């Protein structure tokens, strides 16, 4: 019997532990391994990212025929969390072996109580569906929730736009990229996860001559101007901008991809090795007390060049 289990207190600090546990699934594609137990029975606390990672674990193993009739035990707490975050129908579809995920995604809504949340949302490429839904339903709700906090909204939208584009571009082979967000007046947590081409392999291809470790590649992904697609419209500014805002606001950015991680916690960056996850997981926790936007970033080497561009902003 093979047992995969999730930690009791599955918060941001335990993601690496779970990735170590989950690593074997990426070698189980099409194996229909019998006697597998996915033990979620002890989970008693769970971050938004942890919920998303559990969902992507189930999603990947289902679509890649990893297990044959696995047993899944779920704690009451987790059942309630799936309800709150609108994962229940999505996960039930897998457990009942009736995949209707795309249909279920279309039912998901933004919930606004004292806190708000954006239910898990597929980032579907080559359709206007996701873009339209984000713009017409989700983003106006964020604006409404943070009414009077214009700068915070600008900060959130700037980070969101860069993260979304990054995911759409890096995950071309996997339309099953998911975004989820929740927040209150003091902070917002945004998480994206996929099991497509990870940052390490997409960026690593263009850096192959440099003989870098996966964690060095992830560190480079946060540098200005590092892109896997030079001489295109890619600028390699996206994650750099997000990290600069994280540094200025003493927020948190965690990226896990293909056996490595890079984190910036409250202005301090660390990187290292962790369990292999095919694709990428990004968590951004932004603190909103003293929001900063792109105009506040002090480190533009090209400040003079930028100023000298003649644009008629009438």
């Amino acid at each position: 019997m093979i047992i995969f289990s999730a930690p009791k207190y599955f918060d941001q600090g335990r993601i690496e532990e779970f990735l170590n546990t989950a690593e074997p699934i990426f070698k189980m594609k099409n194996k229909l391994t019998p006697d597998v137990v996915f033990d979620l029975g002890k989970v008693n606390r769970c971050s938004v990212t942890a919920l998303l990672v559990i969902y992507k674990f189930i999603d990947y193993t289902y679509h890649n025929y990893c297990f044959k009739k696995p047993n899944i035990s779920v704690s009451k707490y987790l059942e309630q969390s799936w309800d709150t975050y609108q994962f229940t129908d999505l996960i039930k579809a897998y457990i009942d072996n009736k995949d209707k995920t795309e249909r279920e995604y279309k039912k998901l809504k933004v919930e606004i109580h004292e806190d708000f949340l954006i239910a898990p949302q597929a980032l579907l490429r080559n359709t206007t569906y996701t873009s339209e839904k984000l713009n017409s339903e989700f983003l106006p709700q964020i604006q409404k929730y943070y009414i009077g906090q214009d700068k915070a909204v600008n900060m959130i939208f700037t980070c969101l736009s860069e993260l979304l584009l990054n995911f759409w571009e890096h995950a071309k082979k996997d339309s099953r990229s998911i975004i989820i967000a929740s927040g209150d007046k003091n902070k917002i947590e945004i998480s994206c996860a996929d099991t497509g081409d990870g940052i390490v392999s997409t960026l690593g291809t263009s850096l192959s001559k440099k003989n870098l470790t996966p964690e060095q590649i992830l560190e480079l992904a946060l540098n200005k101007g590092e892109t896997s697609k030079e001489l295109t419209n890619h600028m390699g500014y996206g994650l750099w901008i997000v990290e600069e805002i994280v540094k200025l606001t003493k927020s948190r950015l965690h990226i896990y991809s293909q056996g490595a991680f890079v984190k910036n916690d409250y202005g301090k960056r660390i990187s290292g090795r962790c369990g292999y996850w095919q694709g990428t997981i990004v968590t951004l926790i932004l603190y909103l007390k003293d929001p900063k936007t792109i105009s506040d970033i002090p480190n533009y080497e090209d400040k003079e060049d930028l100023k000298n561009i003649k644009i008629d902003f009438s």
Partner: protein
Amino acid sequence: MKTINLDKYSPLISSQEVGEEIHSFLLKQLDKHEVVEVNLGSIKTMATFCAKQIFGQLYVSLSAEKFFERIKLINVNEDLQMIIRLGILSAIKNE
């Protein structure tokens, strides 16, 4: 002068497909009109990729002088102005 509104893409421009659509639309308008005014009042922000894709490409293909003479960007918030500048500078450097 032709004024173009980008309301239908608001508040966020963050995909390559949408960026390409706007770029193509602006090119068509520039074929028909000497000056095109783009109202970005409802756009909160856009990905730097899209800024390069839309305005960077136009800047390079038209030249700096023509871009200034023929494209007016109105109601652009301070952050979006910076993003557009970054997109254009990156396009210039790629030339």
